[in-house]
């Protein structure tokens, strides 16, 4: 499926039988990396290798993964936990689902290696509640691995033991935020926690915890197999190793999950070469480059290289690598209303700016779309967004504010047309 030779995942994303342990062992050198790690590497060596791999977290924040693991205290008397974030909730994103459906053993092996690296004996996979089938597939894969002795006690005769539990969410975007996820794992409302303390110090069940995205963990066996440096070199720009799974959706001819070496293509190339261009021969109007919370780009801004730092330079973000393409006929005020409605719906409600502000922004946009807004409401909308962004307890406030600020900044005339009555209303 990919146009690039160097892919680690997508070549397996096509056939149901690829998810079996037999396939994994036969075609993907399954569990050899874990055998190597448990057979002779120290936990510190594993963390070092992951650091060398220059892998950034694939969940959205892009935090260097090796560094995250190194924050786990070594001499803690408490149990330590590795928690895999399979909540995949940022709109536009659906890559982790593919990993679980087609290469679940990559994830399990990654969990095994990661658990060894941080000293965890019981790892949890927090999977979004809607992925009912995927949770079952993953549980079946875990059973396969256990039956072969890859999980349980004394794995590969090393004395190391590990259990993995799949924990299902139940419909809450905010549980993709790592501390909201931990509360949800503990049987609470998925409300994000005040940080500090950070999960590395006090996470799941008040114990040191590393929370990593599915794709991040599934890359770990690759890192061990090919070595951290070789993995790092897959990436085409500094500080970003490996490949990236990209969820390409919206108005393209060929939506899909693609894989490219990190930083190897521009947004334009991804949309045109991988996605086959804008559908129905239409023109491009806008691109949401990293999940629905990322600041929107105009059609003129897509020559940036698609990776964390180049996107940051043009004022947006790569997030979870979910690109949504918007064609020329799309009403961006209505689209922004849809995005804002989502964040208002998903606000956990514990902190003031997000609980009150997201709903207010939704109301303002609703009024605009229905021709009830005043001409000053566009500026009011932006000011409200400014009182939310950077002011909330977790990043959901920013996620709600950034689309509003960027849509109005870049497509102001569409908003003005609504409030000045130059546009037919819904």
């Amino acid at each position: 499926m990919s146009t690039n030779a160097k892919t680690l995942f997508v070549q397996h994303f096509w056939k149901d039988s690829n998810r079996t342990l037999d396939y994994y062992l036969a075609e993907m050198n399954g569990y050899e990396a874990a055998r190597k790690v448990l057979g002779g590497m120290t936990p510190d060596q594993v963390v070092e290798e992951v650091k060398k791999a220059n892998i950034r977290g694939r969940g959205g924040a892009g935090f260097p993964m090796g560094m995250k693991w190194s924050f786990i205290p070594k001499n803690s008397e408490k149990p330590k936990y590795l928690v895999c974030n399979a909540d995949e909730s940022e709109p536009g994103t659906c890559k982790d689902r593919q990993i679980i459906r087609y290469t679940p053993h990559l994830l399990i092996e990654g969990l095994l290696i990661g658990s060894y690296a941080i000293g965890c004996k019981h790892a949890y996979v927090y999977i979004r509640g809607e992925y009912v089938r995927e949770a079952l597939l993953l549980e079946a894969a875990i059973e396969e691995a256990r039956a072969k002795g890859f999980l349980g006690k004394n794995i590969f005769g090393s004395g190391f033991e590990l259990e993995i539990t799949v924990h299902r969410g139940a419909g809450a975007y905010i549980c993709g935020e790592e501390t909201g996820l931990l509360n949800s794992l503990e049987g609470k409302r998925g409300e994000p926690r005040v940080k500090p303390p950070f999960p590395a110090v006090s996470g799941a069940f008040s114990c040191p915890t590393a929370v990593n995205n599915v794709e991040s963990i599934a890359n770990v066996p690759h890192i061990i197999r090919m070595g951290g440096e070789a993995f790092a070199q897959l990436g085409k720009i500094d500080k970003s190793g490996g490949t990236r799974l990209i969820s390409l959706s919206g108005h393209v001819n060929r939506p899909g999950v693609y894989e490219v070496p990190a930083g190897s293509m521009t947004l334009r190339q991804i949309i045109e070469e991988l996605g086959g261009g804008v559908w129905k021969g239409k023109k491009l109007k806008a691109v949401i480059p990293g999940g629905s919370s990322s600041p929107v780009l105009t059609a003129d801004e897509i020559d940036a290289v698609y990776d964390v730092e180049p996107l940051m330079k043009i004022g947006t973000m790569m997030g979870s690598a979910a690109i949504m393409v918007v064609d020329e006929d799309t009403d961006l005020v209505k689209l922004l209303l849809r995005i804002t409605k989502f964040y208002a719906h998903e606000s956990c409600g514990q902190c003031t700016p997000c609980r009150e502000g997201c709903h207010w922004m939704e109301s303002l946009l609703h009024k605009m779309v229905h021709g009830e807004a005043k001409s000053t409401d566009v500026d009011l909308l932006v000011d409200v967004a400014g009182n939310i962004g950077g002011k909330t307890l977790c990043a959901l406030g920013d996620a709600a504010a950034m689309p509003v600020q960027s849509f109005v900044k870049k497509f102001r005339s569409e908003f003005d047309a609504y409030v000045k009555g130059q546009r037919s209303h819904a």
Partner: protein
Amino acid sequence: MKEKLLSEKFYQAMKSKEPRYPNRKALILPALHQAQAEYGWLPKEILAEVAEYIGVHEAQIREVASFYTMYNLKPVGKMHLKICTNVACCLRGADELMEYAEKKLGVKCGETTPDGMFTLSEEECLGACTTAPVMMANDDYVENLDIQSLNHFLEKVKHEH
């Protein structure tokens, strides 16, 4: 002792999950899923029984259950259709699908058909954006929807029941 509403199967399933968590409170989400799988939805009596099983105040179960959208605190039809209308699906026609489903089933979003067969809901992003538009039909995803395939699906369900 009140009579138990949840079956022995529920209690056995939970028993096997107990050793997987360091405390009982962490069993709340699994228990609610298990109870809903068994009962279809979560009436107050069931929530109270889950509270008793976990060993917490009933209010604590209620606050957790009401936080998550997947726990049905009201009865739902045999086939619960949740159409995603978030960005990626919306860009590819989810609103028209919702309109069509409302018309076809004769109910508004959020309602259940009088025969108790279908409940129609709007869903936020389901995480299958590259195969948009998408809906959930009970536990299954139906992807790459259009009016034709939606119509086909609804007819099939009606026919099978």
